[in-house]
């Protein structure tokens, strides 16, 4: 095969006459160079992770149970790092006890430390519930926390007043914080929910959302006039008032009595899309008590919210209350007013998988053009769920699981989006690529509003729309020297 450069591309006897890679670049012949992946070279290491460890998610879930103190079975650092990480977002007390492993616990097992730790927490915090999650260390040495807890109860019954002791297995090498959250919710339900005659109330598994979202969810359920229980609900414990006296455990959260009734609920709504059946609390209730389960994705944007409201209408037999229908109407009006600023603007979305599904559906419905939807999670379902939730999405849109921020940065450089939408850990990418970041989700460590960021329902969509379009208008205004006073 002869080449433009006069040499030959196929193997020949005289090596001097082979068209080399260098030659090929000049003459453009031969096989196309291997396309570099959008996210750059593959690395064995995770660089600037877009995920956290499973025990963090479990601590968040446990914080949403009334009177519960989260307890990590492992080294002291796990509890302390997770506390610090969550305090920087929620800006609220986040006490997490630790069984405080030493070398002898690693050699002989952590039973002694667990027992001692539980006793001290009971004495110091007087909790109604202790939510124990395992760290990777406890999992690796094979501590049987389930058995330890049973024995602890047996040994101490009668001598001390023992709170509910819940246990979730959360090995951080088997999933991310989003998984840890779901594992803990499932464990909570598994260990508390009991059978009984059906009661007229709805159980809601809300997913990892903000305190503002939980509060709005409560309002929606209230307005439908149904008895309900959100499990877990950390809106009050993680967004409460200033106190006169210190509270050992912040007030609020879902009472154990409500969780134990879940086996008798008339319906369960699980706000999730990428969840696996084996980690779903709703599936568990269905299997154990044949409870009616409705699973909808996080209600972000009109279409996702419509699905949620429709489920509520179906369960309650009541129409969407006028207040909410009104919000929906005004939201559409806002969409209309602002659509031109949003249309065709390229966005990169990142965060927990379920959150990315919801945000992408929302962005697509207002005319933004998601060019990359990325998560550190690895459910294997992200692509399908996003395509289902946002059918109009460009087939070219990249949907990637298991990525880190270093990879997202490479992709952003290549895709040149107008905006990044995700948690504050994306700021390093934003700074390096000069693409502005709109902060949503968890964590938001560099703004004060983490707890109060509303994403769900028509009201959440209104807030997201206003924030995004205002940002785009600001960019348009600042992007020229004229100084337009009308945009």
């Amino acid at each position, binding site marked *: 095969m002869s080449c433009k450069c006069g040499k030959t591309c196929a193997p020949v006897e005289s090596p001097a006459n082979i068209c080399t890679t260098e030659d090929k670049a000049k003459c453009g012949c031969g096989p196309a160079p291997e396309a570099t992946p959008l996210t750059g*070279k593959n*690395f*064995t*290491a*995770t*660089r*600037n*992770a877009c995920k*956290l*460890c499973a025990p*963090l998610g479990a601590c968040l879930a446990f914080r949403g149970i009334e*009177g519960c103190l989260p307890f990590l079975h492992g*080294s*002291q*650092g*796990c*509890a*302390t*790092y*997770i506390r*610090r*990480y969550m*305090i920087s977002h929620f*800006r*609220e*007390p986040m*006490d*997490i006890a*630790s*069984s*405080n*492993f*030493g070398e002898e616990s*690693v050699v002989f097992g952590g039973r002694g*430390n*667990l027992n*001692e*730790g*539980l*006793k*001290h927490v009971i*004495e*110091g915090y*007087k909790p109604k519930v202790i939510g124990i999650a395992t760290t*990777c*260390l406890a999992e*690796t040495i094979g501590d049987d926390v389930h058995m330890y807890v049973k024995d602890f109860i047996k040994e101490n019954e009668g001598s001390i007043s023992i709170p509910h002791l819940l246990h979730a297995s959360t*090995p*951080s*090498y088997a999933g991310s914080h989003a998984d840890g959250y779901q594992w803990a919710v499932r464990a909570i339900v598994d260990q508390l929910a009991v059978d009984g005659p059906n009661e007229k109330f709805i159980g809601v598994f809300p997913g990892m959302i903000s305190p503002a979202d939980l509060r709005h969810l409560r309002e929606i359920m209230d307005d439908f006039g149904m008895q309900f229980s959100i499990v877990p609900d950390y809106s009050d414990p993680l967004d409460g008032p*200033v*106190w006169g*006296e*210190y*509270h*050992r*455990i912040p*007030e609020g959260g879902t009472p154990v009595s409500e969780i134990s009734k879940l086996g008798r609920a008339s319906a369960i709504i699980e706000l999730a899309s990428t969840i696996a059946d084996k980690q779903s609390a709703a599936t568990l209730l269905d299997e154990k008590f044949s409870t009616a389960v409705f699973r909808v994705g996080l209600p972000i944007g009109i279409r996702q919210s419509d699905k949620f409201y429709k489920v509520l209408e179906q369960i309650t037999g009541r129409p969407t209350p006028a207040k909410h229908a009104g919000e929906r109407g005004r939201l559409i009006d806002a969409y209309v007013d602002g659509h031109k600023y949003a249309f065709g603007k390229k966005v990169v979305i990142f965060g927990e998988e379920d959150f990315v599904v919801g945000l992408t559906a929302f962005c697509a419905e207002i005319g933004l053009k998601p060019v990359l939807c990325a998560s550190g999670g690895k459910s294997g379902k992200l692509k399908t769920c996003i395509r289902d939730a946002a059918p109009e999405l460009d087939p070219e849109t990249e949907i990637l699981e298991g990525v880190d921020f*270093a990879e997202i940065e490479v992709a952003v450089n290549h895709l040149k989006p107008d905006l990044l939408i995700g948690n504050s*850990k994306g700021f390093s990418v934003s700074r390096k690529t000069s693409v502005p970041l709109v902060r949503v989700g968890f964590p938001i460590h560099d703004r004060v509003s983490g707890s109060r960021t509303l994403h769900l329902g028509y009201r959440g969509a209104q807030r997201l729309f206003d924030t995004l379009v205002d940002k785009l208008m600001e960019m348009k205004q600042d992007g020229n020297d004229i100084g337009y006073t009308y945009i």
Partner: protein
Amino acid sequence: MANETINLLEKRKRQIHEGGEFVMEAEKQSLAGSVSQRSCSFCGSRVVLYPIADALHVVHGPIGCASYTWDIRGSLSSGPELHRLSFSTDMQEKDVIYGGETKLYHALIELIDEYKPNAAFVYTTCIIGVIGDDVTAICKKVEAEKNIPVIAVDSEGFKGSKKEGYKAACDALFKIVGTDDVKEKVPKSINILGDFNIAGEIWVIKDYYERMGVEVVCSVSGDGRVEDIRKAGRAQLNIVQCSGSVSNLAKMLEHEYGTPMMRASYFGIEDMSKALYDVADFFNDDEMHDAAARVIQEEVTQLVPQLAPYRKDLKGKKAAVYTGGAFKVFSLVRSLRTIGMDVVIAGSQTGSVEDYKMLMELCDPGTVILDDTNPLELAKYVKEKNVDLFIGGVKERPIAFKLGVGFCDHNHERKEALAGFIGMLNFAKEVHSSVMSPVWQFAPRKQEVT
């Protein structure tokens, strides 16, 4: 819940001094279930080595430890910023079962090729020892292939508190010292050890020393560079700040290179001045002593009038101080006095009995001294002592804020330089901006009083 008296756990009572005879205990393993504010060995190692800006910092383990320490501190670099990136082998279930050595090896090779660091630190996390990965062997192999120091930091979290981690970090650092094979001492030179260049503090301190004619050979680890650490044996004196973090390195340098060490603190007018005079005294150099006096006079003359308005507002207000190491508490007690405030609660995560004894002697009678305390105890005493300001780190902040008390971050996440003379002014501003905020009028604490 609310309105209940907080009682002390029996086993905690001996780590608290409320007055009377001094019989404190300290340096104990944290009580399980006590919600200690301490961290772990990994944290200690990470803290000490973190600011070395031209080294690769790779965390070998599942993802959490790397995620929680990504860009965690305000340690500035005048050049490369590799320390602000987070690298993890992100161990998965199969790595735990079959071992993570291969993964670590590939991770290191690729990262070194990509980022071209001058050294690599590999931090072992809790499970690494348990699954039996030979991290040192992998490091040696990579070191031979890539021709840069690749050092295993023995930082499994369960090995103890931060202190054990400090020691592991010092061992790692010491492996680099002397690798440039130059032995002779640099005249009139020092190493600044135990400053992490938070908000550029080391540049402030360095400037003072340079104005005195002192050469700074190496800083550990603020604005740290591998090349400088190689030279650490060549300084004539080690100035050690921060209670425990790099004391071990100083001891090793003393033993191996005969470099004496000297304690210093750069917080507050008195301690900062002393840190400069002490160096001049060490070199027994009149000219240097005069230069130190000039630096101090220039700085203090500027500073004192600027402090006056803050002092006027803050006079008589009460403060609680809780830090990682105990040495900083001494400086803070003095600094707070400079702006008219009284310390009524003081403590640290890792102080020794001697530290606390000295602290008790420095503080006013009745000051509560706390070792390895926890949120409930802090809340109890903050309330009982009715403080106006809490100085601590992010974990202590919500305790203060929930009780309607001002807060000053004096930990590694702060963004304000608080060291040096200029740092004293920044400190006064920080304290003032929280204590004097009008928002407290709405807090229940103030409403009860009025």
